[in-house]
């Protein structure tokens, strides 16, 4: 026989555990859907199939590649091996310039074309995103 007190404690403990497990499952499930992968132009070239979700592409803005149109701009991100053209609408951070590091977030149309609505700004003019640095070191 289980006493009343013990029974109450068991109920309490099991509710507690179930809540924790449920919230963890919930968190991890949504995490799966909401993460944004970071890839370099070279990795895009080697993709077996195009990702339909948002991705981040990092590299350097190619010299002489920024073109301004009425409502958007286009530029080329390079990792000095492969390149990808980005069409961008939205506000441009101040540290965005040719020959500097950049991270653009958007959706791939094909292996050479990214439609982006967000460019990440960094605080430091000498700053290269860690991902870009690594990609540059690899080459």
């Amino acid at each position: 026989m289980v006493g009343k007190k013990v029974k109450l404690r068991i109920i309490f403990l099991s509710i507690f555990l179930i809540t924790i497990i449920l919230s963890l499952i919930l968190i991890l499930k949504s995490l799966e859907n909401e993460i944004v992968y970071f890839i370099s132009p070279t990795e895009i070239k080697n993709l077996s199939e195009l990702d339909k979700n948002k991705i981040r592409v990092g590299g350097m803005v190619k010299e002489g590649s920024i073109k301004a149109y009425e409502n958007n701009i286009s530029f080329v991100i390079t990792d000095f091996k492969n390149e990808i053209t980005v069409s961008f609408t939205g506000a441009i951070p101040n540290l965005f310039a040719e020959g500097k590091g950049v991270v653009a977030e958007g959706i791939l149309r094909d292996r050479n074309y990214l439609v982006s609505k967000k460019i990440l700004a960094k605080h430091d003019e000498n700053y290269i995103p860690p991902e870009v640095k690594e990609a540059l070191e690899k080459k």
Partner: protein
Amino acid sequence: MLITQIGNYSLILGLFLSIFFIFYLILILYGFIKIKLNNIYSILFIQLFSVLISFFSLIYSFVISNFTNETVYNNSHTTKPLFYKISGTWGNHEGSLLLWLLVLTLFIFLFFIDSKKQPKIYRLYTLVFQQIIILGFFLFVLFTSNPFSYIFPVPLEGLGLNPILQDPALAIHPPILYLGYVGSSIIFSASLSALVSKHINNFWAQHIKKWIFISWIFLTLGIMLGSIWAYYELGWGGFWFWDPVENVSLMPWFCLTALLHSILVLEKRSELKSWTIILSITTFSLSMSGTFLVRSGILNSVHTFANDPGRGVFILTFLFILILISILIFFFFQTEENVRENKIYWLSRETSILVNNWFMIFFLAVVFIGTTYPIFLEVLTSEKISVGPPFYNKLLIPFLIPFLIFMAIGPNLKWIKNDFKKVNFYKFFVFIFLCFITFIFAEKFKIKNLFTIILIISSLYLLISSIGDLIFKRKNISQNISHFGFSILILSIVLNGILSKEFSGNMKIGEEVKFYNEIIKFKKVETFNRENYKSVIATFEIENNKKKLILLKPELRIYNQPNIITSEADIKSSFYEDKFLVFSVLKKNNIFNVRYQVKPFMIWIWVSTLLIIFGGFVRLIKIK
């Protein structure tokens, strides 16, 4: 130069004092030496004084632009305005750690004065634990980031402070945030020492509550200042980006807020002892790991500053030791909860506070996983990812709804046991009435999302119920003010989120763009020379359908040292909405990139946060 020497040696003096003091205290605690309170006061005071001297000598070096000092060289410049020369002292890594140390020594001094009524053993143990933390910071400053290192040959000019940090809000943001962080270290030491000296009771709760409120007030204020700065300086027009660096300051806040509530249960009912201790240990660990994550460069954040991995390793080791010590103490000096005497009933104030704590821990878990998951994934699989706002919105918003409702109901329950029959039913009718109003409102503004509507209803419910309590009950004014502030905060964030409008595109001078019922006219661009930057000011006219004109003058600052461009958005705030305009140059032609935003209820986000803080402040004053 002499001033650098003075600063350096007084820091070393502080370090030795700290080592000596720990031994001295241990000898007292084991009964080898008789306790002399005057000695302890003077040691604490000399230590505070030595850190103060070294802090002021660093400020002085910054003011006179003493470039023999490496820190000054890296972060200052002769043409910088005096205000930013001084704020530059803590705008960098070395100086900010010196500030940490200063606040640590100041707080322990104040704590010792303040805790006179507490048992001696408890006070001494708190000093020991706090001195261990202080010692760790002394070692960290002196060996990995000494602000007084020389540079030779002496450069003529400094590298300058990052212009984005040359801002009044950011000049006071770090010190205020640190006051919050360091306050949590006092709570940490005090909890451990209360465990060791078996002093966890309502008397202790009453005394430590003051420190919890102090650090909570500063932490909230610090987070708010950072957010305001991000709003007008970064030029993105948002106030919270779920960026890792921001999350890192929010995590201790969740924990501290949970602690703030659970300490009340400990004070009134002598319950939740272990839980309170766990919360205070966690709050401090989160504050420390925050510093670690920001400074080590592990976080992939838009706020990344220059950093050094060696420092990260030191903080990580130090943090590991502290957590290990606290866990050991927690297990060996476990206090017994007197479960038999006090029964917890389902419908009581205690339970509602426990519910608050559960929600807080859930929010904490979400933010924690979202922030650290990318780090772990990269270490394990070298895949690089980032977790964006949708993740947080999806997980936090649904849980905010019951949270808000509990916030309205909880404070009206009685301690120990509330009779179900005494629950106020007229509030139920208020609730239905609110549903009705919100649906009309939603219909008018075409809000389709059901979650948003329910969220608005529940925050309105909290709003009405806290105003009602404020007027009719007047029992717990501070708590009512804070809860009232929180309801406005959520309400304005939600409305701001769904009703914001944004235009962004490229414009030439003289061009006009139609945007909803307004016309944006780009008038002219002028250039001025300022003290340490060149200023480019554009003039925009916004004309609404009633022919009313608003002038907006955003600015671009081109700094000469270091060579950086920053945008200063022009914001016209009003009671109802903010108009936000920022522009930037595209290459060297005449096309400018313009971003115009209309953000409703923006000002209420800051006002409501101030209300929340004010509530905490009122409570702090009432504690004797």
